[in-house]
């Protein structure tokens, strides 16, 4: 059948519009469902849900603070560990490696993101957790033991191990966004620095890091967004114990890990609803964080292109 071009265009346009709309509708539907599912818990506890750290499914008493704390502390700690590493890796790949090696190493870094979360979890449980217990914790305790963060007994699984796993998992995200940001810097600017007698280090600082500040921030926040929502690996190594402890060696739980762990076994309506409420909170937080990050990255790349 022969279709005239204008008709064909109309079909394509209608089709494209339909699929784009489906994406938007899905997002709205998910948000709506989350609201609906968490309504029971919301009616019961209101906003005090966020402020209470008491979580007792047996007594149908729920508060999310311990999970919020666990999510925030593991995410921030992983960002602290992964941020500098990723920035240095991005600079090294972009500026110090010949092109061929750079693309090979770039692929390697991005492959880390392709490792399934569950594999990270198993690796964390069987290798990293004992390593943390036997080597990292004693070391930290010996030299930094005067800080409350590094006091207490380490069982291997806990906040620190979860943060380490998360750090490894977000390195590819931060690295590739940073590489993108650095790549948008015109060569001319690097040459300007070199032409003034800057050393390579000074060139990197002057022409690459300084003007990329907002882009780097965007990359970090994107990494943070990834860390906030990561579930499986964290659930396997954090210990799933809803307590707020100052020690990084202590076990804990995150918003995502408690959902993964308890959803299947939740038998009361309120328990299920409380878990959905946590999901809603997590969604709102990651949504805002991602929106924030995208805005920074967009603004940055628009500025460096002009």
């Amino acid at each position, binding site marked *: 059948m022969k279709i005239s071009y204008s008709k064909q265009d109309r079909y394509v346009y209608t089709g494209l519009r339909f699929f784009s709309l489906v994406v938007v509708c899905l997002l709205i539907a998910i948000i709506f469902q989350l609201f609906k599912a968490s309504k029971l818990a919301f009616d019961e506890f209101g906003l005090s849900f966020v402020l209470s750290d008491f979580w007792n499914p047996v007594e149908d008493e729920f508060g999310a603070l311990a999970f919020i704390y666990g999510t925030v502390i593991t995410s921030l700690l992983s960002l602290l560990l992964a941020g500098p590493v990723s920035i240095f890796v991005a600079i090294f790949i972009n500026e110090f490696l010949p092109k061929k090696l750079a693309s090979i190493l770039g692929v390697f870094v991005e492959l880390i993101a392709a490792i399934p979360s569950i594999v990270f979890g198993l690796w964390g449980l069987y290798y990293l957790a004992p390593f943390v217990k036997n080597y990292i914790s004693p070391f930290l305790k010996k030299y930094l033991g005067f800080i409350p963060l590094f006091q207490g007994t380490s069982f291997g699984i806990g906040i620190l191990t979860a943060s380490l796993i998360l750090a490894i998992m977000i390195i590819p995200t931060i690295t590739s966004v940073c590489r993108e940001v650095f790549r948008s810097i015109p060569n001319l600017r690097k040459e*300007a620095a070199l*032409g*003034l*007698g800057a050393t390579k280090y000074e060139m990197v600082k002057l022409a690459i890091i300084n*003007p990329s500040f907002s882009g780097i921030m965007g990359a970090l926040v994107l990494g943070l967004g990834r860390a906030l929502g990561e579930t499986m690996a964290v659930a396997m190594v954090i210990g799933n114990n809803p307590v707020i402890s100052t020690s990084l060696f202590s076990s804990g739980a995150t918003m995502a890990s408690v959902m993964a762990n308890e959803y299947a076994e939740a038998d009361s309506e309120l328990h299920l609803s409380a878990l959905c409420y946590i999901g809603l909170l997590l969604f709102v937080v990651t949504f805002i964080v991602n929106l924030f990050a995208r805005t920074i990255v967009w603004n940055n790349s628009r500025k*460096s292109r002009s």
Partner: protein
Amino acid sequence: MSEIALEVKNLNAYFNDFRAVKDINLTYYKNSVNAIIGPSGCGKSTYIRCLNRIHEEVEGASVSGEVILGGKNIYADNADPVEIRRHIGMVFQKPNPFPSMSIYDNVTIGPKLWGEKNKSKLDEIAESCLKKAALWDEVKDKLHQDGTSLSGGQQQRLCIARTLAINPPIILMDEPTSALDPIATVKIEDLMNEIKKEYTVIVVTHNMQQARRIADYTSFFVLGDLIEHGLTSDIFTNPKEKKTEDYISGNFG
């Protein structure tokens, strides 16, 4: 004849196996403006980028031969390219001030990189270099605004001021006016004439009239070869080579 500023001996430049600049021998004298002209792709930009060792920053690029500055070969094994670039400054094709840095910081960044911290000394450098670059009157009241807020011509003069601030005896300019309008171009040309009192200027230009207006000496390149070098007046009125004559009369290029 005045003192020698820079001597180029048997200089070859390569991109991987491609020989872009072939066996160049040239001598530059102090306080002169030297133009390099030639059709596009003749290796003039590559050549000038060899003179402060920035050519080698491109992947796969290499250089052979000697460039003698103050009795020393800048390509000697023990020569430090970072040190050399502090003696041979460079202004690029497009204005490239550092973004998110003020006008003042852009001018004083060179001295700062070498460890100059004295505020009044830096102020002095900023003022004198911006004056030499004929930009002072236009920016003296907004030294702490972003360098990129200036117009293209002003930005290029800012870049010249930035180069003057490292006080290099030799200044290389790679088509410094190609991205500028005619009025800004005239200002930069006047500037070259002015700064040659203190510096030696080597400038690549695709504009023959510009070479004629500003240069004491002119070199003519074709496909990596130096065809002819001499006093600008000789090159343009009485060229020795047929190719030069064809080029300047517009028959080829």
